[in-house]
């Protein structure tokens, strides 16, 4: 059902999914090794992993949009 190739060398398709799932569950030892092997030779997946890491940090940092409104109000008064 999964379209990930399960050959010796993991595909980008499999690694992208592992990068995402790795943020939501503990990956198995084998999954981690396959992913890291792939990063060594694939810039696209390495960049993707960094993008996902940034996305997570950004979401954790996100606060309610309050200062802007208060700021605008002060300008008006």
């Amino acid at each position: 059902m999964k379209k990930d190739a399960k050959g010796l060398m993991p595909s980008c398709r499999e690694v992208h999914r592992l990068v995402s799932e790795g943020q939501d569950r503990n990956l198995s030892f084998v999954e981690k090794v396959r992913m890291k092997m792939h990063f060594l030779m694939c810039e696209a997946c390495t960049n993707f992993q960094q993008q996902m890491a940034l996305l997570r940090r950004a979401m954790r940092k996100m606060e309610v949009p309050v200062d802007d409104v208060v700021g605008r109000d002060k300008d008006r008064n």
Partner: protein
Amino acid sequence: MSTEHHKELESMRPALVRFAILHLRNETLAEDVVQDALIAVLEKPDRFAGQSSLRTYVTGIMKHKIIDVLRSAHRERQIETQDDQSEDDVIDALFRADGHTAQMANRWGDPDGTLEQKDFFRVMEICLEKLPAKTARIFMMREWLELDTEEICKELGCTTSNVWVMLYRARIRLRECLELNWFAHQPIVRARE
């Protein structure tokens, strides 16, 4: 609490409602959440006095209120939990038939620099608004409310593998939206094609 403080809080209301809609995708519930949150702030002004920023304080209260509403609203079937349609091709579109990426993922440059920019977060909110409702709700529960997959499944009644796929789709969509509307316009080192 002073009248001025009261007014200041009241002026936040529209922005807070907009923000709550990002999570709940339901205007009535969003307005209820904000109402509860503002009352909570007004009831405990002394707690705020010790906080470094009103924004951080209100953010914390909003998190609690949104979790409460997600829990009760699901039980009362006030929020839609149907799977989002037209989501199937989001992942497929990234890869060629042999499993390679169809396009090189770009480097996004210095993360610390990015996260210091207010405008980046504005763009991110717009990108979050564009997510389909259920995908957005699950993504916000995972990434902003920091619930784990099991808790999300318990609240929304879906399987863990389903949640993993929905989170993956949400991330792919957000990445594309941020790439297009933010990173493509930033002077950063581009990856070699």
